[in-house]
């Protein structure tokens, strides 16, 4: 496989995609898990399917459509959520299905044979193109900068945003920014694990990392490492045994998490 990575461009793309996806899921996943935004992120991910459908219909790159839909959905959910308060559960559910419905509708309107959408739904790391890698890379760099440069504020925001407001910090700004970053992370991960499976890759690495440390920075770092482990296991199985990479990544991640719970549970 190392040979293949050195020699074939599709394997190089897959390699970079695995690394970038691991960074995205480690950083944003930790925030999502600690702020309890898991279902919300699922909603945003599924809404982005509408963008993929629209991309096919308008004959533009589907991932750009997903990008637009994910950002729009996350900002819409953020602002409606602030108005209606805690009842965001219902709202997320509606966005979730609405996005999928729109996607199916747009694809139905697309002339000619229906496109193969399964790589967007379940991911396929071996079909990642150079263009996807550039997009993923740019988004990941942006995300790393955004999180490290404001790390103290993120930490305070995650722990107690009300106190930040008392200090005079505009926490709604941070919240909108965070929601946009969740959308970016989802776009990064779609090519690798797909819309349907993205939630497990966002949650399993940070949740497993949480079992090993009490420090937010270390959780993020460890989650990136775990993400790498899961992504490369997916890549390996998909290369040698022709298994669907997204599914293997998710199954490894979840098994690893359960294993960690059992081991750590015995220690304490």
């Amino acid at each position, binding site marked *: 496989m190392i040979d293949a990575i050195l020699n074939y461009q599709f394997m190089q793309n897959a390699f970079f995609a695995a690394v970038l996806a691991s960074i995205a899921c480690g950083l944003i996943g930790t925030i999502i898990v600690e702020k*309890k935004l898991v279902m919300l992120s699922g909603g945003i991910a599924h809404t982005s399917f509408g963008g993929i459908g629209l991309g096919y219909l308008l004959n533009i790159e589907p991932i750009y459509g997903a990008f637009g839909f994910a950002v729009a959905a996350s900002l819409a959910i953020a602002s409606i959520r602030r108005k209606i308060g805690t009842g965001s559960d219902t709202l997320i559910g509606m966005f979730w299905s609405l996005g999928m419905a729109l996607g199916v509708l747009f694809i139905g309107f697309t002339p000619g044979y229906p496109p193969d959408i399964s790589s967007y739904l379940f991911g396929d790391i071996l079909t990642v193109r150079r263009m996807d890698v550039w997009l993923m890379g740019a988004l990941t760099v942006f995300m790393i900068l955004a999180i490290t440069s*404001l790390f*103290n504020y993120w*930490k305070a925001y995650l*722990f107690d945003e009300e*106190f930040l407001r008392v200090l005079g910090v505009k926490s709604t*700004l941070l919240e909108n920014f965070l929601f946009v970053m969740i959308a970016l992370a989802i776009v990064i991960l779609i090519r690798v694990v797909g819309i349907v499976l993205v939630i497990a890759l966002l949650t399993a690495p940070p949740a497993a990392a949480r079992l090993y440390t*009490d420090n937010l920075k270390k959780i993020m770092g460890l989650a990136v490492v775990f993400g790498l482990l899961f992504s490369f296991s997916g890549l390996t199985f998909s290369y040698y045994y022709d298994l669907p990479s997204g599914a293997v990544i998710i199954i490894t991640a979840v098994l690893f998490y359960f294993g960690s719970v059992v081991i750590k549970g015995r220690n304490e």
Partner: protein
Amino acid sequence: MAYAVELKDVSVKYGKINALKEISIQVAEGAFLGIIGPNGGGKTTLLKVILGLIEPEAGEVKIFGNPLSRAVDKIGYVPQISNFDRDFPISVLDVVLMARLGGRVRFFHQYKNEDIKKAEAVLDQLNLLQLKDRQIGKLSGGQLQRVLIARGLAVEPEILLLDEPTANVDASSSSQIYELLKNLNEDKTIIVATHDMAAVSSYFDTLACLNEKLYHHGDKYLDQETTEQVFGCPVDLIAHGHPHHVFAPHGEEENND
């Protein structure tokens, strides 16, 4: 001299329900005020109005004679500990350091040495310094409560607002916390929302009784009539184990409102 906190005809509504109705209150500098009242009576809402977390529908809030926007650094806030996720991966020192973030977002912000020294000094003052690296989930309720007080103090405020500081702690921690507040009261104005009747008698010097409206504001001697109005039923204000009565047998009542 301006009052530390002054509210004029403040009303707050949640939807169509009145949470606070025409509240006027003046808190003198150096006061140790207890806000008592039933659950859902608006105690937390009142604190949040003073903090600027809730915009009142009508009325005016002034801190040392200034509008709130010019006084955010003068108020320290200690929220209810039940609001917190105690599993959150943060250490005691990091919680207190939050207070040193200041009001503006700065990129690549790092805590300065003096911020860390200040946070440690406050932790030391509250006997928590040996716990500074501990994750907050591994503290007792009383310890976490004191950590939150330390965070409120690390803002270096002139007014400290506390929401139910003894709601989730045992009796001995509870009196420890009130002793601490009594000491802090020497150079700070302190406002506590509580339904802890045992504290009413021993520690506060003024009381406000709140249930949508402000029924009483003044000294700590309440009569049965006022408490019945506020709580909707007779309340035994004589705390168990406390030798003295909360309300003295006195004839006239100062009813500011």
